């Protein structure tokens, strides 16, 4: 009897711990929605800030985050997927492969601000790209790479070995097998990983602080070599650097950023579950 009481106590304890962990998450999202919703209007989403950023909208920051995410995708998706193909389809199980895996693990653990320093040293100064969308996108790409590589590799490895054996046995080359058989089968998993990776890049502030983010720009960036405003950096600026900033605009900006992130998350989950339902193997 006693040990059943211990079990009941233990289960109750873990249930309340979980509750205490999850409840604040719901509260955070709920609070941002309630506080931010009154700020959302067509003007807020489509106008540039003015009056020392205390009025107007956040359009340039939205566009900037879109450009940065796009730039990150251009560099990190081909590179990451190719690296995943190498690890899953070509790499032998040897020391060098072990070293590659160790490098990927380390890349995923490097603090985001250190990526910022690296981007400043390599892209901004050494390659002379300046404080620009290009420098920031390249920095974010390298940070995103480990997420894309590991999720894409997992998706590729999940494709049954028989698919490869059969394709090779009817005379296809290794690359033909990968391109026509393996990649299409693994695509939903790869897309899920790409969305999650880019989502993280879109929400990051520290790596773009000194590589591409601008405090305030009166107009939209015209080329990849221009600096840009970005949503997360804009939220940082208006909540710490601008005195007497109206609260409503701050919460509105947070809400737009959070909705973007939540939507990307839902999209990733949708792609994943739809692919699971359709899978024939």
């Amino acid at each position, binding site marked *: 009897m006693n040990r059943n009481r211990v079990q009941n106590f233990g289960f109750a304890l873990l249930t309340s711990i979980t509750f205490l962990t999850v409840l604040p998450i719901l509260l955070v999202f709920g609070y941002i929605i309630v506080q931010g919703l009154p700020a959302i209007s067509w003007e807020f989403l489509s106008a540039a800030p003015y009056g020392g950023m205390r009025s107007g909208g956040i359009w340039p920051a939205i566009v900037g985050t879109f450009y940065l995410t796009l730039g990150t995708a251009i560099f990190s998706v081909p590179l990451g997927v190719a690296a995943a193909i*190498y690890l899953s389809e070509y790499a032998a199980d040897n020391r060098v492969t072990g070293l590659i895996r160790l490098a990927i693990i380390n890349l995923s653990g490097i603090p985001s601000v250190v990526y910022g320093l690296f981007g400043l040293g390599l892209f901004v100064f050494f390659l002379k790209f300046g404080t620009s969308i290009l420098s920031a996108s390249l920095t974010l790409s390298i940070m995103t790479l480990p997420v894309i590589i590991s999720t894409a590799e997992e998706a590729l490895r999940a494709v049954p070995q028989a698919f490869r054996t059969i394709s090779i046995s009817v005379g296809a080359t290794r690359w033909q097998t990968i391109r026509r058989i393996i990649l299409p089968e693994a695509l939903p998993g790869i897309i899920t990983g790409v969305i999650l990776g880019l989502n993280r890049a879109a929400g990051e502030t520290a790596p773009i602080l000194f590589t591409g983010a601008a405090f305030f720009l009166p107009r939209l960036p015209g080329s990849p070599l221009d600096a840009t405003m970005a949503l997360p950096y804009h939220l940082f600026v208006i909540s710490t650097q601008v005195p007497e900033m109206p609260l409503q605009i701050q919460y509105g900006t947070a809400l737009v950023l959070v909705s973007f992130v939540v939507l990307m998350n839902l999209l990733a989950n949708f792609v994943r579950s739809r692919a699971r339902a359709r899978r024939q193997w």
Partner: protein
Amino acid sequence: MQKDLSLSEFIVTRLIKACGYSAILFVALIFYFLLREGLPTLAEVDLGNLFSSRWYPVESYYGVLPLISGSLIVTLGAALVAIPFGLGTAIFIAEIAPRWAREILKPLVELLGGLPSVVLGFLGILVLSPNLRILLGLPTGLTALAGSLLLGAISIPTVVSVAEDALDSVPRSYRDAALALGATRWQTIWRVTLPAARSGVLTAVMLGVGRAIGETMTVMMVTGNAPVLATGLGSLFAPVRTMTATIAAEMGEVASGSVHYHALFFIGMVLFVISLIVNITASSVVFKQKKRAERVLS
């Protein structure tokens, strides 16, 4: 035709191989640039100054100890939050929760993981720190404690997902055997499943702590940014400044190539080495476990 095919196959294979090796190149490049810009500090600032307890670059004081102690105390606090809550949630999700609850809890925790750290910092300034100030009667709510609580929240998703994976990969037969011998579910979790998953659980804790040390925006926004040497647990209730926040706050204002610029890269180098140690240790724990399992099976 045949020749074309084999040539393109050759090129594609080479390209893919090069991409595969790129991860090594990037780690090397990052290390190289940190060394290149950070090492001059050792020549420009004498060691007594560098390891002193005063960080005030305007007057050429480059003591990194307050920054390191700031990072340590905030990270320690974050671990005290993330370990019980993260592991508790992971055990609940993996072992106790019914299926429907799991389907709700997992995406929720993932959602927290996707929340940009700047948003948590923003709520920390507006909601958490004013309440902490009133609750604890402090002169300011922007303290190491506020940073610890938020960093704990940021680390929780990492701890939960890695620990839950580890618990999930414990073979079903272990649990069945324990239950068949008359153990309760609680005894099975505590004496069989958790010990079997302990290396994975340890990895979860290490990766969570690693995430906390490297977090930048949240701590910069809520810890008050005072580079004061932390001397004990009392410092939890005072403003501190971490290594990451120092880099983020000051790099924008320094001239490239100056002593201050090099000192900030030096701090970045220290952070890089810490993350390297944490990640290599965490992954070698996993490898060791795998080897032992292989030995048992063979």
